[in-house]
């Protein structure tokens, strides 16, 4: 029996999961039973990754074990190093990530997805991005530091020096907030790939490709660009009303699920207030105007500031170049992707939906010589 076509599979249940739940009606994001607000500023990214993979928070000994395992897998394979150097320095870092993760994984061939492989993949993402960034700047690569946590080491490898505890904490919170989010498009892509019994790296490479799209992870840099065009808070209303007449989309607004304020955006907004006051002053005014205009146009739609809007301000305050915003989203989400692949592999059925044929009725082809 086939059901009616629902564009975008909206509302269609594609998987059963215990990893995360997006409770849009109540504005809650839940990881394995924990509400995100209870995790965000208290847990390290490593603890949350453990939670997503194993379903519970680690003990102190388990966390130390995981941290060591991550730290021990931060260097790239020789093939990955060569492949990284083969890409031009002006390549989109998302394409670098997609390609080098693909190389980094070849030694695992068709290995069944497992937690150690998830740990190794997660450990490699910051290294790939940081090494590429150093190459872009014409600087020597910085070897990873085993004594630093995941967020601190990423910043250290990017900048060649340790960041302040406040900056490290901010990046850590960002990584915790973005680590999983239900059956979003990149996670779903990873599960579709895993459902053919393909390997973990293949699933991750597909997910990176999906995250790259502007309708998914590709938007935070565009938020900054739009704010720069607007310039100052006092110009926001006029710029935005003019923009709307030209059908310009407001960046950082709109999502399918939340009926109330996205709980992650709430936390990121508060972080922007503390860390990036210039951004905050402009962004809050732009948000106010955007919501006003959007409400005038579609009063029936819910409030819609999305996570990318204030992510942009936090990532900017951390000092990341804007072309590294989406790749840094991947640094976080790889934890969720791999958790979903493990869950899919544990109880698998190939994901092979139906399509509805809208082409012509069967007819006979004309041989080449008679066409034309």
């Amino acid at each position, binding site marked *: 029996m086939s059901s009616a076509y629902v564009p975008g599979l909206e509302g269609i249940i594609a998987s059963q999961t215990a990893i995360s739940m997006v409770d849009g009606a109540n504005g809650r994001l839940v990881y394995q039973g924990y509400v995100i607000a209870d995790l965000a500023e208290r*847990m390290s990214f490593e603890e949350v990754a453990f939670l997503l993979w194993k379903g519970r928070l680690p003990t102190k000994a388990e966390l130390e074990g995981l941290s060591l395992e991550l730290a021990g897998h931060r260097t790239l394979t020789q093939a990955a190093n060569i492949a990284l150097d083969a890409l031009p320095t002006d390549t989109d870092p998302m394409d670098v990530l997609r390609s080098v993760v693909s*190389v980094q994984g070849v030694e695992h061939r068709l290995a069944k997805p497992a937690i150690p492989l998830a740990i190794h993949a997660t450990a490699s993402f910051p290294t790939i991005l940081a090494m590429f960034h150093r190459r872009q700047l014409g600087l020597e690569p910085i070897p990873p530091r085993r004594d630093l946590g995941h967020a601190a080491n990423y910043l250290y490898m990017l900048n060649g020096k340790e960041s302040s505890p406040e900056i490290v904490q901010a990046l850590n919170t960002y990584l915790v907030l973005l680590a999983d989010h239900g059956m979003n498009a990149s996670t779903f892509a990873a599960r579709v790939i*895993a459902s053919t019994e393909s390997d973990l790296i293949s699933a991750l490479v597909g997910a990176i*490709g999906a995250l790259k799209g502007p309708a998914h992870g590709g938007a935070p840099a565009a938020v900054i660009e739009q704010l720069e065009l607007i310039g100052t808070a006092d110009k926001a209303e006029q710029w935005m009303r003019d923009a709307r007449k030209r059908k310009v989309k407001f960046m950082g607004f709109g999502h399918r699920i939340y009926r109330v304020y996205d709980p992650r955006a709430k936390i990121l907004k508060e972080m922007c207030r503390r860390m990036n006051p210039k951004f905050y002053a402009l962004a809050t005014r732009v948000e106010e105007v955007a919501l006003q205009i959007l409400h005038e146009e579609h009063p029936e739609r819910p409030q819609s500031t999305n996570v990318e809007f204030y992510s942009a301000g936090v990532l900017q305050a951390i000092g990341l170049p804007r072309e590294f915003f989406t790749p840094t989203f991947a640094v976080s989400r790889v934890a969720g992707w791999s958790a979903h692949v493990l869950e899919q592999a544990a109880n698998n059925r190939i994901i092979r939906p139906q399509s509805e*044929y809208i082409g012509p009725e069967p007819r006979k082809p004309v041989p080449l010589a008679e066409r034309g």
Partner: protein
Amino acid sequence: MAEFSPGLEGVVAAETAVSEVDGANGRLIYRGGYLIEDLVPVATFEEVAYLLWHGELPTEKELDALRRQMAGARKLNTPARGTLMALDTATDPMDILRTVVSAQGASRALTKPTLDEAIALTAGFPTIVGAAYRRRQGKDLVEPRDDLGHAANLLWMMEGKEPDPERAHWVDTYLVLLADHGLNASTFAARVVASTGSDLTSCVVGAIAALKGPAHGGATFAARSMLDKIGSADNAEKWLTEAHARHERFSGFGHRVYRTYDPRAKILREMAKTAAPDLYRTAARTEEVALRILHEAHPERPNATNVDFWASVVLTGAGIPKELFTTLFATSRVSGWTAHVLESLADLRIIRPASRWMGPQPGKKPMQLAKR
């Protein structure tokens, strides 16, 4: 909310005019309304690719232009070549394909998928497959030949000598037969990636990643491996009976869609008689015994020889080693993947299904690390 259908079985996830699998009547219809068995006698792979992309078969002039465009796009660019050479020669050819396609498409900025890109991507697959094969053999790479058709050039790139026309014809027919097949898992993966607004390379890389799985593209290899184990027609009865007693799956049998004989398997079965007479005898006896055993075990299930079973025999006859089977599948299906992505652009909507929460009740409070 809708019921959960594992694997999205029976759920319509897209409207398409690219192809239709009419399982009840054993028909595969390609874009334009042509039945696969009507196309095989009159159309080469290039004509079928044109059909999938444009919706109509090309005239002689149009075909000529396409062939020239493809011939001009067969070479790898510098990053792709550098990436290829970074990989160990023993790397899984599907991992090579995934990685080198990713590097070949690495770009500075995100672009919307175009037909020219689809053509260039399709043209490049035989180059990568041929290079992977020659490197495995410890041989120097050969340059593509722009005077050969797609199938003949593939064999040239593998072997470094011009293939006889009959073998090129078998490969070409295989490529025609496998070019599209409704919303299979890899095509669906490509459409999920495309739905975020991502680029064509990301879509194709995700599709390669999905095709790699043994439950999808890896099945041709498995079918050939089973035939190798059976060894001869005389041994089929004994081997299959014992394998069945061990609850082993018969590779090359079973599919979700067809209720009658797969029309592609029918054509390949006929070709196998001349392409690989010895292996044909073993395969024909294997099929007879396997269908009998499966029918005895599950009389309610339909006849189930799938395309992978007979494809493995024809590809063997064409001189393709089984390690390359899945990459040959990809070489064909990339035309369908790209046609689906281009089609989806007309009404792009992010594919973001729902999931059913199976985890603990939300709201439990995380315990401090020291107390765990």
